[in-house]
């Protein structure tokens, strides 16, 4: 079992503005593991939206503004998989021509840990309070899956939770159709992918699905709200918090 006492949370722009509860729940889960969470308040975004659209210079400007925010040698936990992949794999590429920043980016990349990955290696079965049976599906961001193998960490993590039955929807590994500006530049294709993903999730018979990628969740929940169903996607941190004996959970009781 790993023994970090402090971590940084790099919450990402999507969590900050659109899904803050996921970020709060991530903090609570991390604290329940006995870790002190530092949230550098000047953090904004990993730069991915501009980077994947072809505006690497703009992405570099934004990424550069994050480089000095994590001075201690603590792990940097990212509760959104594709952003984690951006830090880990693409920041070093962004600064390939700038030796000083490259060194910084590489050091940060080496400390970057996706949320599930971090929690999985530290969670003890004794910390699980709620074992109510639930049928769950796991949706993993496709970039995060390929760049960080988050689907494996996510499955391992869920397997540690008594009562959770993990279902595997059809075409589980396939993209949900988000893809950043792809969803705006090719809305019909994106929507077709999203609809197929939702059909598969609904057909799987899951009561809920979880994900550690907030872009995918915004996309899937945004489309689910147009459907006559109560099925929703939840950030895996929020689900986890509901199963653990965390400070917030005790307060709610």
């Amino acid at each position, binding site marked *: 079992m790993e023994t970090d006492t402090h971590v940084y949370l790099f919450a990402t722009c999507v969590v900050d*503005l659109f899904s803050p509860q996921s*970020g*709060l729940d991530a903090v609570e889960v991390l604290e329940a593991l006995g870790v002190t969470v530092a949230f550098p308040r000047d953090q*904004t975004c990993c730069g991915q939206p501009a*980077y994947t659209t*072809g505006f690497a210079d703009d992405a570099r400007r934004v990424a550069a503004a994050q480089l000095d925010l994590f001075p201690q040698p603590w792990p940097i936990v990212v509760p959104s998989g594709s952003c984690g992949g951006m830090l880990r794999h693409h920041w070093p590429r962004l600064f390939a021509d700038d030796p000083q920043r490259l060194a910084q980016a590489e050091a940060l990349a080496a400390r970057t840990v996706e949320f599930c990955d971090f929690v999985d290696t530290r969670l003890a079965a004794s910390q699980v309070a709620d074992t109510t049976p639930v049928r769950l599906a796991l949706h993993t961001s496709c970039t995060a899956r*390929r760049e960080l193998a988050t689907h494996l960490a996510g499955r391992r993590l869920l397997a540690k939770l008594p009562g959770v039955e993990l279902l595997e929807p059809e075409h589980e590994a396939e993209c949900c159709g988000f893809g950043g500006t*792809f969803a705006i530049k090719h809305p019909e294709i994106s929507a077709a992918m999203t609809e197929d993903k939702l059909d598969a999730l609904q057909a799987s018979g899951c009561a809920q699905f979880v994900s550690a990628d907030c872009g995918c969740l915004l996309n899937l929940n945004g489309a689910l709200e147009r459907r006559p169903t109560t099925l929703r996607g939840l950030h895996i941190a929020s689900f986890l918090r509901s199963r653990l004996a965390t400070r917030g959970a005790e307060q709610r009781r």
Partner: protein
Amino acid sequence: MSGDRQPRPQDFKVQSRAALADPALRASFRSAMDFLVDKRAAQFPDIGAYERLRSLGTRIREHALAKLPELLERLEQNLTALGVQVHWAETPSDANRIFLDIAARHGAQAMVKGKSMVSEEIELNREMAAHGIDCVETDMGEYILQLDGDRPSHIIMPAIHKTKADVSRIFAEKIPGSAHTEDVDELIAIGRRALRERFRDAPIGVTGANFLVAETGSLVLVENEGNGRLCTSVPEVHVAITGIEKVIERLEHLPPLYTLLTRSATGQAVTTYLNIVTGPRRAGEKDGPREVHLILLDNGRTQAWRDQRFRATLQCIRCGACMNHCPVYTRVGGLSYGTTYPGPIGAIVSPHLLGLDATRDLPTASSLCGACGEVCPVGIPIPELLMRLRGAARRRPAPERKPLRDEGAARSRAETLVWTAWALLYSRARLYRWFSWWATRLRRLTPAWQGGWTRGRVPLRPAPRSLRELLAQRRR
């Protein structure tokens, strides 16, 4: 999409929208692609072994491209020594002119052709027809498409968008004396009988080539139907055409690439035919062509080769696995792209062939999910290349480099402005905090229409408070 209305890359959005609205097409592509995905997966049960083979294949292709000019020279010398005539074509029209010259010297009115995507690239059939030469497709899928005036929608399974009923109708209409049937075996027999006649009479056989071996001067042709073997052995003249990037250095480099190709493409451990043509008929041999030509086409490949950021594009061995695994291709089908090469590989190859203006919507038609890069048997970082092409289409070329064709053509002032503003906002922490404070307070003013996003989703609306505010409250 048959007949006169040939799809164009400029119309990708319109064409893909039409394809998405066709449930039968979507269902058939989905099931065909699932079938190919499963067959491929069954061929690579051991991930470790696959990764080793793939890294070997990648190195072989990288090595060949690193030495491309030298290997092409050696290939030409060895082919010439064997009696093969080598022709260099910079453009499709150069290539067609070479075909016409060869046909004129032999007084040929007809050609039989094996499956060749490069011949599609130069629109050989149409060009030959314009000069009174009948160039007949002999690959069954391609033959069906030619009879119907249609185009391939997949580089390995060209007629994957045709149903059994379509083929039945096309044959009944276009092959005189054939009985109407929907039995697949009978349909194939009808097609084969019609094609036999053509093989017997044609003075020229045309094929592509999957690999060119520099050290031996060999043309390698991978196929399943035997039509390639007939095209390379029955007619008096064999003309092969392929891209300059297909050369590999040594014969021993062939087996790993062949294995990667067949397993990735059709999920086969071996194909029915593997033809290695090393020169024309020799004295004392009973068959084989008396004349062999190789046409090496550039058509924009040099542009990809000379720019290190794009050279990996040319590693491709045309297996089609990237399209089989692509969630976009699976839904819009191959014809939507309006290019010779559809899907992810098409989106990274076509900009070099046709320019970044005509193909501006292709590199953006990807969620960058990474499935293509993951299954590419020769390690082409397709998502990475798509991002670079997006950038090249949208930004002014750097003065120190030779620009790509139509570099910066998709540059729009509005889009540049949006990202400049975005970068300003997200690179200044205080400005961003101010912005997020107001965005959360004014969340009710979020527009209900948000362009493409709200086409299938509810509008994006900021939360009542940002995470940084919630955390600050919590710490109090």
